[in-house]
């Protein structure tokens, strides 16, 4: 177990190093001069040069890369070009929206998907199963931002139950903040819930067909107990894999949903920073996203060993 953790951690570090290099190189070739964007179309060449110098953009690429990585190692994410404030503060601010949003979405998604998937599999081709199949087919086909737009039209504009977007901040109290996050979280969760439901259903069906389930039933265990004790724990393993992949998707999918709902989250910060060519912010956010995906995968791997005792004895 310890060996697994160490080997995983070192490969994590190497991956992050490669990711940082890739991000830096991509941004180098991406067209767009942050100085010209800041100073607009009426600024003179000497002013642009002054700003480039102030931002350190006139220095060689290698030095800039080393500066960035060096800063990261000291926990310094740098200063945003447009906002003129530490990226760490910006990210922390935005994280306070994106993290609760993603967690809420995961919660909604799993709370919907697991029971529905298992219920559908328990009575294959029954009315529940058919309904679940239709629902999930629809959910897989419809993109989250479009669901978001429909939600705004119906729940906010028509019924007035929710704000049409924006975020009052946690300072306004938990109630209003959650109210602002609920619609986007559901919009984010539904397509993922659909995928997860299908995976849960097929994983459960596969286990139901296995020999040990027949044995359990043969020794007199009832349907319910068999499901709970033998089927669901085994079906959880493929479901965890998908959930792990989805965790990173929630983070990334937040970009679209945050834009539709005008939420000041990390995704929208990334989008704005890209438009403004705030290179410092983009680099950091992409690295944070990548780091997050890598860490989640690592945790999922650990999760297998907890869920599946067979892996533990092997490791």
């Amino acid at each position: 177990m310890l060996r697994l953790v160490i080997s995983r951690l070192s490969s994590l570090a190497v991956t992050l190093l490669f990711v940082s290099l890739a991000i830096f190189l991509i941004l180098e070739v991406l067209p767009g001069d942050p100085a010209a964007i800041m100073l607009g179309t009426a600024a003179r060449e000497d002013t642009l040069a002054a700003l480039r110098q102030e931002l350190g953009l006139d220095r060689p690429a290698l030095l800039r890369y080393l500066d960035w990585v060096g800063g990261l190692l000291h926990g310094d994410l740098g200063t945003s070009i447009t906002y003129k404030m530490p990226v760490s503060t910006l990210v922390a601010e935005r994280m306070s929206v994106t993290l609760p949003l993603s967690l809420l979405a995961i919660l909604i998604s799993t709370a919907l998907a697991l029971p529905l998937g298992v219920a559908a599999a328990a009575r294959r081709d029954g009315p529940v199963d058919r309904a679940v199949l239709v629902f999930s087919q629809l959910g897989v086909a419809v993109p989250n931002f479009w669901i978001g737009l429909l939600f705004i039209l119906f729940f906010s504009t028509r019924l007035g139950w929710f704000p049409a977007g924006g975020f009052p901040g946690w300072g306004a109290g938990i109630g209003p903040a959650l109210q602002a996050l609920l619609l986007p979280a559901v919009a984010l969760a539904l397509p993922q819930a659909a995928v997860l439901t299908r995976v849960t259903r097929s994983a459960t069906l596969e286990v139901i067909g296995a020999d040990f389930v027949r044995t359990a039933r043969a020794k007199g265990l009832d349907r319910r107990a068999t499901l709970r004790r033998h089927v669901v724990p085994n079906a959880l393993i493929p479901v965890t894999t998908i959930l792990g992949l989805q965790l990173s998707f929630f983070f990334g999918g937040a970009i679209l949903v945050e834009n539709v709902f005008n939420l000041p989250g990390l995704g929208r910060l990334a989008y704005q920073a890209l438009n403004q060519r705030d290179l410092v912010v983009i680099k950091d956010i992409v690295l944070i996203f990548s780091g997050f995906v890598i860490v989640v995968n690592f945790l999922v791997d650990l999760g297998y060993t907890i869920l599946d005792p067979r892996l533990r004895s092997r490791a």
Partner: protein
Amino acid sequence: MSKRFLAAALLLSMSALPAFAAKTSLVVGMPIEPPGLDPTVAAPVAIREVTLANLYEGLVRIDRNGKVQPLLAKSWEISPDGLTYTFRLQEGVKFHDGSTFDSADVKFAFDRARDPKSTNAQKQIFAPIDSIETPDPSTVVIKLKETSGNFLTYLGWGDAVIVAPETAANNAANPVGTGPFKFKSWTRGDRVELVKNPDYWQKDKVKLESVTFRFISDSQAQVAAVRAGDVDAFPNLAAPELFAEFQKDSRFRAVAGNTEGETVAGLNSAKKPFDDVRVRRALMHAIDRQALIEGAYSGFGTPIGSFFSPNHPAYVDTTGIVPYDPAKAKALLAEAGYGNGLSITIKTPQMAYASRSAELISAMLAEVGVDLKIIPTEFPAKWIEEVFKNKDYDVTIVSHTEPLDIEIFARDNYYFNYKNEKFKALIADAAKTTDEKARFAKYAQAQKILAEDVPALFLFQLPKLGVWNAKLQGMWENSPIPINDVTEVSWTE
């Protein structure tokens, strides 16, 4: 406490209740969030729309009619040779951090702006300054190297607001000015909150206790926020197709004014066939500006024939110089040797007004045998790289939002690649002319030259589609400079 006293107290407190008192908070919606709150270090319009006149003040201000009015300078004298400006400053003015405003702050602010290392987006407006003297705390004497006709106007721009030496470096995140409102908080990505400045030097003018700027980029969401009352005023709505509905609704005031944004389709004059003025004129003759405005902006917006804002007193209507005339367009093209057609491209940014206009222009040019292919590009980053810097384009389309920017056509190496020595001399001359009438006459002449020479297809002035609660008074209908001045805005009930 006796019951009678209690009853009296209750009655008193009830009568003191503001049953008829007007609302004192205002929520203003904006499509774009400012990147930072310091107008002296970056160009974006959104910075000025939050901060100018609300947080920061200049020596002078530009009023809603585009006229220069005294502000931190209560009066000034200009020497007969136009080279020495003596400003008498308001006394008893304090910055939001409690420090006193005086002539040293003015000197600091302008020296900072014209320093070689300065990143002021409009540094050139300070270029004529030779020296700044402060004989006493309430007097500033600015000596110029050469006369500058628009000098006072420039001092009313966001680039010339007065900032204090102690706080200037942090203004982007924590703005400190002398304005009627103080910075309270900025929830990045969502809103900036300002509160009334209790020590403001003309506080009797200010009725509002708090102002919140909310940033809503999606046009549908903007409309929903105004309808729901989440936002009291949206001075620059990005949904022209829904604007007419507000005009019919008595709960709202909906006014289509002008911005400083000239929407033009720049032609690359260094490139064939745009080096031939006949071709440029032919393309202009092929454009039906009114039809374009109908299609691209639901009929809002003023047609322009040159590069000058209708807000400016020196504006002249030049739309008749090269009017819509497809037959003439064909004749000119034939004369220039393109009678059998011409194939060109337009680099089009993603903004709705730009892509819609490009499609309409393409259709209009097809009528005269010109095939205009649309190449999408991304504004600002990609456009600045490809078009603005590398000048790798045939035709492009953007709105230029800086005020009084006709001089860009006089610049060498600007993206239009336009070269006209006569025009250049005229603009340089106008800039130095201190007599207003003479200067305006020169600007009028300059407008006509551009209209005849067509270095860009002059299309329309971007409208300012303002919507606000009908009970609000004092909102600006036009924006002669990028600004959302809410100093004198109040609720009628």
